[in-house]
């Protein structure tokens, strides 16, 4: 059970003067229950890649399969839930309930299961069921975003793909979203987060893919990712790198602030290193 991307190349506007190659020979697989981070600068092909995962785009060459089925076709859209950037823009329902129920309803779910799916999705993101009857447009920006995410979760896809879900979220909303995603992945849903902002995600992801100008240039664990030291790695890893270059024996695959802290206190021999 996995999403398999095999040697996918995609060209926009083929055969015209505007022809551009957005993806070049990409091969990767996303396994059941895995938490994957796809990183890369804006314009590196991340958005084009995720449009292949649920068949919105078809590769110019190569193929994408989801659990053995070709990625275009309606069945796959129920298996792979995709949340694009600026998801608050897709809200349209008169009530939060209507909006969140749109996806699962389209996939054929009816009451009472539908109601349960909607409530579960809202609860998982820390939203109260009290917001069901109100208009989504009266919510704050962060809440709108979470409602849009609930709209994808409520379909209970086997794979959930989110494009820049953290950008512009407050600390509180960020934490509730990250813990919901971790919970999902521990229960067997694959989570794919696409982001150029990696620092919040390295400590939760199990595998990282790095795209650069349409090519896959790295694939490995978060620890291997920081050892690879791409220009977009978190600032804290630049600190660790410089410490190493000045002769401090800190690990080069430490990431996240807690890791960095225990490494620094270890090499400095500070007391109370275990406390944090």
């Amino acid at each position, binding site marked *: 059970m996995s999403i398999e991307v095999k040697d996918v190349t995609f060209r926009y506007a083929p055969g015209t*003067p505007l022809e551009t190659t957005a993806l070049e020979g990409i091969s990767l697989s996303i396994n059941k229950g895995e938490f994957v981070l796809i990183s890369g600068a804006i314009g590196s092909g991340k958005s084009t890649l995720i449009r292949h995962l649920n068949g919105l785009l078809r590769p110019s060459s190569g193929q994408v399969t989801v659990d053995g089925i070709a990625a275009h076709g309606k069945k796959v859209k129920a298996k792979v839930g995709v949340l694009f950037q600026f*998801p608050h823009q*897709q809200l349209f329902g008169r009530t939060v309930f209507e909006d969140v129920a*749109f996806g699962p309803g389209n996939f054929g779910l009816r009451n009472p299961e539908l109601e349960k799916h909607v409530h579960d999705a809202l609860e998982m993101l820390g939203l109260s069921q009290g917001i069901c009857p109100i208009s989504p447009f009266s919510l704050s920006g962060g809440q709108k975003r979470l409602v849009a995410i609930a709209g*994808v979760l409520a379909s209970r896809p086997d794979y959930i793909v989110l494009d820049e879900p953290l950008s512009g979220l407050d600390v509180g909303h960020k934490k509730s979203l990250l813990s919901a995603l971790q919970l999902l992945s521990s229960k067997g849903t694959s989570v794919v987060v696409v982001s150029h902002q990696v620092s919040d995600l390295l400590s939760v992801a199990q595998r990282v893919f790095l795209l650069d100008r349409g090519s896959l240039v790295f694939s490995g664990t978060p620890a291997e990712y920081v050892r690879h030291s791409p220009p977009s790695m978190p600032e804290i890893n630049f600190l660790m790198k410089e410490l190493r270059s000045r002769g401090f024996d800190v690990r080069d695959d430490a990431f996240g602030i807690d890791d960095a802290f225990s490494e620094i206190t270890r090499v400095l021999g500070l007391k109370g290193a275990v406390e944090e």
Partner: protein
Amino acid sequence: MNTLLFRYVPGNSFLHRLDPRVKITGMMIVSISIFMSSSLRQLASVALIFFLLLLVSSISPKIIFDAVRPMLLFLAVILILQFFLMDGEPVFYIMGHDATYEGLRHGVLLTLRFLFLLMFASLLTATTTPSLVTVGMERMLRPLPLRKLGISSFDLATMVFLSLHFVPFLYGSFSHLRDAQISRGLDMRRNPFGAVYSLSVPMVRIAITSAEEVAVAMESRCYQGGHRSSLHAPVLQKKDLAALLAFSILVLALV
């Protein structure tokens, strides 16, 4: 694809440097003569004029072809309709309709007229930046008593400009939104009502929000309506008027 249509191609040819008002006037003269021409000989002269201008502009014929190409199917339909629907001497017979010689002649003339109009228009936009087109239009509209209608020629020019600006932006937002709703299982064919509802509600909001944002950005940069100056200040020179005169004579003589 919309970037190919009526695209500006930077350059420094005689045609590029010509005053936009002259080019717009020339465009009007040539349009009138295209519509008045009733024979293939006249249209051949129009073609000659076009290729002369193309040569002067040093624009690659491919640019013009790219601009015209999206319309070719439409033109073909017109041609075929004319071919069959016109009464006259039958050439051959298919599915209960006569294809007539008159129909063919008429259809060819009509499609060629459209084709030439498109080609001249794309030559105009290829050698003139959109803002010069608007400045040119604004200057030409200025003497009209638009004030009485409560708008200035500046407002009108800005409106034209903003609509040119908004179309690609809204189109981009629309395809983003469509992708999002299709990902949520929207099936446009099986659920047309749901499609209209789930696309139009957010689209109206996006249009309103972005219109507001542009309005705020314009206001913040001191836009007040009414008088503005322009980066481009076209000044009619002798060579512009001479070019217009020469062009008019050429068109009148040939067509």
